């Protein structure tokens, strides 16, 4: 080594920095969370009391406050739910089970037909439109095509709802048609929905 000195620093003390990469990003890239272990994603834990036919109160979203019937848990972890549509306007819909307040009231589980088992997450997938080129889009009809609710889905809704409606008595229908609200004197932490 060179036995020399510069401003009090020995040459031997100096370490030369070499660039490892040619390009360094200005900010740290955000990486999506990746499990370091090979542990598989656990299936969604079954909520206590959440069984087919149970009345649930929807806590958020478009149908907040509505009382709906739980049908089954879908493989994606979402809950399949129905109004029934004719009673309260809630169609076959996927909902986050965290936002469902489970009550003790249950409709006869026999009323939930096996049709509900045939519905999957794919049923709710958005229909893919054919890709249009930019030019085509410009010349496309400005009048928007009326969105028609697919008749197959209407039929499906009817098939699932019919046995349920047959089982519901008028009081139960009124109950499902009414939205849940907090009134004077109701303390949410003291209200009982299901005695666990």
């Amino acid at each position, binding site marked *: 080594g060179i036995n020399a000195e510069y401003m009090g620093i020995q040459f031997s003390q100096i370490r030369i920095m070499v660039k490892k990469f040619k390009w360094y990003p200005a900010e740290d890239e955000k990486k999506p969370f990746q499990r370091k272990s090979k542990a598989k994603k656990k299936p969604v834990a079954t909520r206590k009391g959440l069984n087919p036919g149970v*009345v649930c*109160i929807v806590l958020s979203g478009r149908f907040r406050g509505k*009382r709906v019937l739980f049908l089954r848990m879908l493989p994606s972890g979402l809950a399949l739910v129905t109004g029934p549509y004719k009673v309260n306007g809630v169609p076959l819909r996927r909902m986050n089970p965290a936002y469902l307040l489970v*009550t*003790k*009231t249950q409709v006869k589980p026999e009323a939930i037909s096996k049709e509900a088992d045939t519905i999957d997450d794919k049923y709710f997938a958005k229909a893919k439109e054919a890709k249009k080129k930019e030019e085509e889009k410009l010349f496309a009809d400005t009048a928007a095509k009326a969105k028609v609710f697919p008749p197959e889905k209407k039929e499906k809704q009817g098939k699932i709802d019919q046995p349920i409606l047959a089982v519901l008595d008028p*009081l139960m229908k*009124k*109950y499902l048609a*009414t939205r*849940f609200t907090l009134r004077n004197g109701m303390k949410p932490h*003291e*209200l*009982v*929905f*299901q*005695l666990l």
Partner: protein
Amino acid sequence: MCIRDRYQRRVHGDLRNLMGFKRFVQAGRVAYINYGVDHGKVCVIVEVINSTRVLVDGPTLGVPRQVISLRRLALTDHLLKVAKGIHTKALEIVIKKEDLVKKIGESSWAKKLASQKRRAELNDFERFQVMMLKRQKAYLVNKDVAQSHGKKPKKESAKKAQQAKMDNNRIKHHFTLKSHQKKKKKKKKKY
């Protein structure tokens, strides 16, 4: 009869007490525990320690023999004829003999507590049912009130109307449909 009662009798004759107190803190007084570990239970006062504390016991009632503050107790009308300082076993015999549990259960206080407890346990559908029933009842009651006011009453029918009103449990005598409507009109005038 305890010393106090004898004194009252002697001093005031037939008037048991001048101040109108009826429930005294005395040995044998049945009390309801309002606060603490034994909240909600019924016990018997066995001995008075001082103005704030008493010795209490409830053998078949689930209350262990203990000193408890009077502030935690609510006295009831029931009084057992026991000497002060009675032992637990002897008290148990008295309670069974008097059938205290049954007597307390029959009191309106216990019934109110039971209904309060039931109300607290109502689930969502039951609450809805209660709401529906209340509305039905209110409809029938208001209908009756309106009918009794609709016709201009002669003296006889006025009496009948009064009777009908009194028969309906929850109507307060000063509330009438007309006065309610007048109130509504008055409110509108403000704006």
